[in-house]
């Protein structure tokens, strides 16, 4: 018996496993390659296109000069250089960060709820943040400033996340129905709160609230970028460290526990991660919905559900999506700027509908 044990075990499954490993490597290589190209192209395009058009070489030259490398490509005019570094680059950086944070938050939330339909926007986290921001804007004083509004949005988002978590779970699982109903309840409550705040506020505050809700990356500044970066990078790093545990969670909390996972602890840490990621993303940029739904889902279709790849793909995919969406939002209409949140919802809404239909037909019901 012992000698039989030492011989390499060759089973029929191994050959096909190996063949498909190389197939999957190819597929993930292609996806990551495409995302990287899209990311670089998006950054350069977004930085170059606008009222002041800057050539590709000038964008690259300005970037290099900014980090201390002088090249002949650096823009000749000081105004172009300053415009890139004061206005375009922080905005591009913000779009990358917000997109990545929202997509990672979506992937983590779906892992925790064991449900591909969980998304910060759908379940009401974003509207919680909106309520917080609106309260800040109306209250005047310190809270009405950019930082104050962002902090209030952050608090609102975290509060709504915790509320959904407590309300939507039953017996370790979250059914689609419960999740969506909880989302409806949280959205309705936050919506009512928002309406009340708008009713109370003066017309300037109203306008500010409305535009905050529509979502925009306009006027991003480096200090704001830095704040979002700290939260987004730290939370994403923790999420990556937990990737293999999220895989186990797919077996259901009981079985995951049998495999040695401290399920309750993982869930609480993850919910905080989602709240921080979403809160950081919406704090300055306003509501940008459906990124956390669409991106992880698309990545999962190509790379499969294993979370290490899924989180990496989502991070890149979210950044790519938002940098291009922001470019489109800025340039689609001459002389005006489309709210980016409107754009993502325009794509995300129908996609969500499609997912719902599919989940229903697959599972033969709404469970």
């Amino acid at each position, binding site marked *: 018996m012992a000698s039989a044990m030492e011989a390499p075990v060759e089973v*029929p499954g191994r050959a096909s496993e190996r063949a498909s490993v190389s197939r999957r490597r190819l597929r993930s290589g292609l996806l990551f390659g495409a995302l990287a190209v899209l990311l670089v192209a998006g950054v350069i395009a977004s930085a170059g296109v606008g009222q002041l058009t800057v050539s590709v070489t000038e964008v690259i030259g300005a970037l290099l000069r900014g980090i201390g490398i002088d090249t002949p490509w650096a823009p000749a005019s000081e105004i172009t250089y300053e415009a890139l570094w004061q206005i375009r680059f922080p905005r591009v950086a913000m779009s990358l960060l917000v997109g990545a944070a929202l997509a990672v938050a979506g992937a983590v939330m779906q892992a925790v709820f064991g449900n591909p339909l969980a998304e910060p926007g759908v379940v009401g986290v974003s509207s919680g943040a909106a309520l917080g921001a609106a309260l800040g804007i109306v209250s005047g004083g310190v809270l009405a400033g950019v930082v104050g509004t962002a902090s209030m949005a952050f608090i609102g988002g975290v509060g709504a996340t915790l509320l959904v978590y407590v309300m939507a779970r039953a017996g370790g699982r979250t059914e689609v129905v419960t999740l969506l109903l909880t989302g409806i309840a949280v959205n309705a409550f936050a919506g009512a709160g928002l309406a009340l705040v708008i009713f109370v506020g003066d017309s300037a505050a109203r306008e500010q609230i409305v535009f905050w809700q529509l979502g925009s990356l306009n006027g991003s500044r480096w200090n704001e970028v830095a704040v979002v970066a700290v939260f987004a990078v730290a939370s994403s790093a923790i999420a990556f460290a937990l990737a293999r545990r999220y895989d186990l*969670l797919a*077996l259901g909390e009981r079985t995951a526990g049998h495999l040695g996972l401290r399920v309750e602890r993982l869930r609480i840490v993850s919910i905080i991660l989602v709240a921080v990621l979403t809160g950081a993303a919406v704090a300055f940029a306003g509501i940008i919905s459906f990124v956390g739904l669409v991106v992880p889902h698309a990545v*999962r279709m190509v790379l*499969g559900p*294993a979370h290490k790849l899924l989180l990496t793909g989502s991070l890149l995919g979210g950044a790519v999506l938002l940098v291009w969406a922001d470019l489109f939002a800025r340039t689609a209409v001459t002389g005006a700027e489309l709210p980016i949140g409107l754009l993502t919802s325009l794509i995300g809404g129908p996609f969500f509908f499609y997912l719902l239909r599919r989940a229903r037909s697959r599972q033969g019901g709404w469970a």
Partner: protein
Amino acid sequence: MSHTPQPDAPAAASAVAEPPAPVLPPAFHADRVGVSIGPATLVEDVSIDVAHGELVALVGPNGAGKSTLLSVLAGDRAPSSGAVAFDNRDVRDWTPGDLARRRAVLAQDNQVAFPFRVWEVVEMGRAPWQGHPEADDDEEAIAQALTTCDVAHLTERTFTSLSGGERARVSLARVLAQRTRAVLLDEPTAALDLKHQEDVLRVARSLAHDGVAVAVVLHDLSLAAAYADHVAVMERGRLAALGSPADVLTSALIERVYGLPVHVLDGPDGTPLVLPRR
């Protein structure tokens, strides 16, 4: 088809040298265990041991408390009264990681939330060994578990695309890949065809032969009689009988517990066969 316990298991080696199975301490020792939820009593005053090298079948009608008892043995649920010791220590005192390296559990309902491939699902059974020297055996443990459960041809399929019986076997493979010295199986045969039912019990039997403590919830009494060392009959939360299949599975007891008249026949291989009187 043989299962290998982790290296710390002395049973397999010593069993070859001296045929009579060595006397091993009980893996699970339940002492007067009771479980109540509100006014409902699910399990009451159950004392049972499952020793290393022993296959114990838990049988009984629906709602008799078999799965509840199993979840108490697994450490999922704290008993309302009494206590469960696992490897000489209260089962609730083990850390989840240590427990996962010593006992594996097959739950009744096995779902996977996302379309993971069969290979990945079985690989999850190796998670407790991550960062331990045993992790070097991952590949081999997975391959062996896949073969043993007759699912090696499914490795590239997604779990969500499998039939009920295939899911059950893949989940069992995940449990085997965990390579623990104790295994709890909750109705592993429920969705299986005739051949795979026998296969699963044969696997459980060979685990026990290698020194693993095995407790299985079963509905098929003849199956329990053929493979178990001991049969525990549960009746409304209580232990109605516990002993060797021949002693326990009498028509009088079965008729009382299940409320159904039965024939208990001597099978051709000497194990009792239980048939409803029709």
